[in-house]
């Protein structure tokens, strides 16, 4: 996995990494997958059927899981864009109110914090991962559908690799010079 470039998504508040492996930046790629790519969603939930139907999400079919994902993704996309736009003038509606520390035991908000955002629904399985530059400047490093409590599945481990890769890239490019940083995750 190598970083190709970083795109400005909204208002110089929300940015998104593009990796060489993919033809779109992560923000577009994730939401295209979640909102418009039914094949992707079907294959994902079929492959992870055991986790989907483990009981945590109740009795849910693959079809309903797909419908739910699309619905939540649309709302999450709208929320992120609204916050990115509004956050420049209203601190209480900025991206910092949406993104939370990636690791639940971290509470200190700092630069280059690794963050996550969740879908709007209770028990949402949508995750967007980003690095915080300041209260309303975030760089999206990736996203995933998280059906398990821990990030030990391959596709989730890949998100951890990506977020660390971006942190180093930003540090190497003097976007942030300090050595300490924390990881954040978005939650709704």
């Amino acid at each position: 996995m190598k970083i190709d470039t970083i795109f400005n998504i909204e208002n110089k508040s929300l940015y998104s990494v593009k990796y060489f492996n993919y033809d779109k930046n992560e923000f577009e790629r994730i939401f295209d997958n979640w909102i418009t790519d039914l094949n992707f969603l079907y294959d994902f939930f079929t492959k992870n059927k055991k986790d989907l139907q483990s009981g945590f999400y109740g009795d849910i079919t693959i079809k309903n899981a797909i419908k739910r994902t699309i619905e939540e993704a649309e709302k999450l996309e709208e929320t992120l864009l609204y916050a990115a736009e509004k956050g420049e003038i209203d601190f209480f509606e900025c991206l910092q109110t949406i993104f939370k520390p990636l690791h639940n035991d971290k509470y200190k908000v700092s630069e280059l914090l690794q963050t996550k955002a969740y879908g709007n629904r209770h028990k949402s399985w949508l995750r967007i991962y980003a690095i915080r530059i300041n209260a309303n400047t975030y760089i999206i490093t990736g996203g995933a559908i998280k059906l398990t409590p821990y990030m030990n599945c391959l596709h989730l481990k890949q998100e951890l690799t990506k977020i660390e890769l971006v942190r180093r890239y930003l540090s190497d490019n003097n976007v942030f010079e300090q050595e300490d940083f924390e990881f954040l995750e978005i939650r709704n």
Partner: protein
Amino acid sequence: MEKQRNNLENIVEKQTSNWKDKARFRQKNKSWIKLSQSIALDVLIYIKENGIKQTELANLIGVEPQRINTILKGKENLTLETISRLQEALGLELIPANKSKQTVQLVLSIGKKTTNTFNKIDHSLFKTDKSITKHYYA
């Protein structure tokens, strides 16, 4: 902090992403896109669960295989002809008719046994729901 933002701007791609156009398009065309997705999802699940390849489905409805791929993405403004061909090929009802609601109305109307109510009934139902017809004439 300003220096960091400037350093960030130095490494950001000058070309803008076109996601906003896509998001606006989705928002503007939400109602038919939802319907298209619903149809695409039913078709996708059916062919996956029945082991039907997209190329086979393409042959059945007389289109190029790439067209099936596009349809299954759920963002195609499907024609009635395409929907009809898919329904016939797969034996699915992709746009559910409002039959159940009409059937309940018909039964209630028969129960009231009023001529006026009868006149309001959709007589085309007699062609599709023979059990109701038998009950009425019994």
